[in-house]
Every structure is written in structure tokens, then in C-alpha cells.
């Protein structure tokens, strides 16, 4: 399994029946492919839809039914459409149970930077700042390192997305949470040791005695 799929599958285990979930572009989008059987999750697309379905069959795309990247999607029975003010009212107002976003850096207190690299790449924050500030639970889906450098850092060198800490970071190596505001290793992926995660991480990691090593954890870390 490639790193992206590994991450998406692990995050999908955090889904619960009835949740309203917003998935960012990239790895987060893949999470929708692994919804556990028997549960119904509402996926919101911030451009104005709840009930986003899979990519349409050839010839069935509608120009006015798209994801937040402008790509054609379908709508499931029970879908609903709304304007951008309602969409962000849902996001900012605490109605979103979960958002899954990509990340450039996460600091050891859980603060995310994911919207620009000054002087180099300035895509803009789009909905990211509202999502991180407003969602009940924020999970960052990202590879553990980029160009050999850990993305889980002591301090973000890039501009922050929000001063609200995220709840969980899921990489191909580990699941990291922030109980008491400090980066804490909760779980390592299949075949990955705690020492390997520590070696690959710039941030100082709290290692609890009950860390689940080697994957296979069946429970989620949803806050009570």
C-alpha cells in the first residue's frame, strides 16, 4: 500500500455514523473511498453541497455539480445545495464534526501551517482557516517528511493556518495527538517502530507507555 492510501485508510477509521465531514484536496479526498461499511457519513464540499457522491460516469457530468476543485462530482439521494455563507456558517459554527486537511507543517503544540510558502507558493488559504478554526475535530493527513525533512516541527517556520491546535496528525509512519497541548505518539504504522518515528520527527514527542506499536489499532482517538 502506498503512503497516501495508508494514511487515508487510517483516517477513515475515525469516521462515525451521522458525521458531517469536510475533506480537503489531496490525500484527504481519498478518505471517502474507505468509509466503514454500515455507517452513513455526510460529506460537505465547501463550494456548497452536502452529499457529494463519486465521480460521474462518462457523459453524465454536469458543469454545475462540482467539488471544491471545480471537478465534476455526483450527488447522493438526500444531498442539499446552499450558498457560500451557509457553507461557512456550517464550518465556522461548529456544525462540522470533522475536517481532514493536508499540511505543510505541524508544530509540537499542534498548530498547523498549510496555506503558503512565502515568496514561493501562495495559493491562499481558501477555506482552510475557517475549517481549522471551526470544525469540532481537525485531522491533518500528510506524509511524515518532505524532501527528507520532518513536517512535524518544533516551531512552524511557515505562516499558521489557525492558532487553534489540530486534534490528530496521521502520517504513513504514525498517528500523533496533542493531549495537554503536546505532540504525543499514539500509534505507529504497521512495521514501524517507536524509535523510527522519533528519528523521523523534528518535534519533541511524548511517548506514553501504552503507545500502540506496529499498527492494527482498532479504536479511534475521538475526544470524549
Amino acid at each position: 500500500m502506498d503512503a497516501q492510501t495508508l494514511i487515508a485508510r487510517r483516517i477513515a477509521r475515525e469516521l462515525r455514523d451521522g458525521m458531517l465531514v469536510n475533506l480537503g484536496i489531496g490525500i484527504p479526498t481519498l478518505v471517502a473511498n474507505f468509509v466503514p461499511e454500515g455507517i452513513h457519513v455526510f460529506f460537505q464540499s465547501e463550494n456548497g453541497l452536502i452529499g457529494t457522491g463519486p465521480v460521474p460516469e462518462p457523459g453524465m457530468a454536469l458543469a454545475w455539480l462540482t467539488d471544491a476543485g471545480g471537478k465534476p462530482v455526483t450527488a447522493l439521494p438526500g444531498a442539499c445545495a446552499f450558498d457560500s455563507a451557509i457553507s461557512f456558517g456550517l464550518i465556522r459554527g461548529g456544525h462540522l464534526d470533522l475536517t481532514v486537511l493536508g499540511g505543510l507543517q505541524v508544530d509540537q503544540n499542534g498548530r498547523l501551517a498549510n496555506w503558503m510558502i512565502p515568496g514561493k507558493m501562495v495559493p491562499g488559504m481558501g477555506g482552510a482557516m475557517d475549517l481549522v478554526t471551526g470544525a469540532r475535530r481537525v485531522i491533518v493527513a500528510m506524509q511524515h517528511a518532505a524532501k527528507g525533512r520532518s513536517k512535524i516541527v518544533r516551531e512552524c517556520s511557515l505562516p499558521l493556518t489557525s492558532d487553534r491546535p489540530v486534534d490528530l496528525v496521521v502520517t504513513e509512519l504514525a498517528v500523533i495527538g496533542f493531549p495537554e497541548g503536546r505532540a504525543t505518539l499514539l500509534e505507529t504504522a504497521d512495521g514501524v517502530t517507536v524509535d523510527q518515528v522519533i528519528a523521523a520527527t523534528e518535534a519533541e514527542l511524548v511517548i506514553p507507555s501504552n503507545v500502540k506499536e506496529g499498527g492494527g489499532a482498532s479504536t479511534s482517538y475521538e475526544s470524549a
Partner: protein
Amino acid sequence: MKTISLTNAVAMIPAGSSLMIGGFMGVGTPEPLIDELVRQQKSDLTVIANDTASPGIGIGKLISARLVRHLIVSHIGLNPETQQQMIAGELKVDLVPQGTLTERIRAGGSGLGGILTPTGVGTVVEEGKRRIEVDGRDYLLETALRADFALVHAFIADYLGNLSYVLTARNFNPLMAMAAETVLVQTENIVPVGLIAPDHVVTPAPLVDYLVTKG
């Protein structure tokens, strides 16, 4: 309802105007109005919109034609030309969190001076803004936005100007239809009065100044 030809609609927009333009990655953008802005070379524009789509699509065409001087948007990530013009200092870009942008436009259309949002507190977005505490939580005061013209896409309009939208083409359109001095609407279908059920009208007719006809 006043109808107006595409040519005349765009002719009434002076160079240097501020425009709110509906759409999200080009979806729900009134494309014929964009094309006509390019044809008439309306320059020096301030554009308020969610994004600049990508080159060749929607607002991306205005960027490629270098007609925009000032951009107020939430996202330019899928249009490298916008980023190049910005980095080269040819285009002023204000990046606004998307939910803040929706509320600033809504405030402009609803007679509010602004709103207090938690989004952006403690980030670069806070620079130059008032931080206001309410019940122990910090918020940024984000002020209302208005424009000279709103360029709106609707799926259906009736002869009076009542509008309804379709799926993800709705996005910023109904908000912008309230927040500009003059509202120009390009629609896929114009139907007789009474054919849109009152509960399905999203933008009431009195908000619309002109329905733009083809040609």
C-alpha cells in the same frame, strides 16, 4: 424587468470599476460577461471573488488579459498566472479566508458594518485589524465589502428578475446580488412570471437591475 444586451451591459461598466463576480473555480461564473469584459478591454478592475479559476476559465481570462489591478479573493492556487502577476508586483492581491469573504460580502449587502469572526486570530490575517473580545473569546472585526457591479450567474430567472440557482453554481452569487450598486445577471433560462415557486426563489427580483440577453 430591464433586459440588456451583453454588449450594452458591459459598456456600462467603466474601466477602474469594482466588480463582484460569482463562481467557484469558474462554476457559476457568468462566462459571457467575462468574455465581453475582455473583448471591450475593461481595464484597471478591482475584482472581488472566491478565486481566479485557472487560465482560460472564468476570472482566469481577466487575469490573462491583465485587466485586473486589485484582487480580493480567498484562493489563487490553481491559477499560476495570478501568482506570477502578484509576485511580480503587477497585481495587488488581498487574500481573505473564504468564510470571512462570504461574511464581508453578506455584511455589505445587508447593511452591517462588519462581523466578528474567530477565523484568522493569531495569524497574519490579523494584521491591521481590530481584535475584539466577546464573552472571553477573541474575534477579528472584519468589515463589509461592496462593489460597483455584481456579475451574477443564475440558472433560472423569471421576467421580473426573480432568480434561482443550481447546485454548486450557487456559491457566492446570491450574496453578491445584494452587495453591489448595479446587479447584472446572466442566466441559462428566462421563464414567465409565476413559474418559479415563491419558496424556490433565492434572489428576489427587486435586487436585480438587469437581465443580460444573448448577443
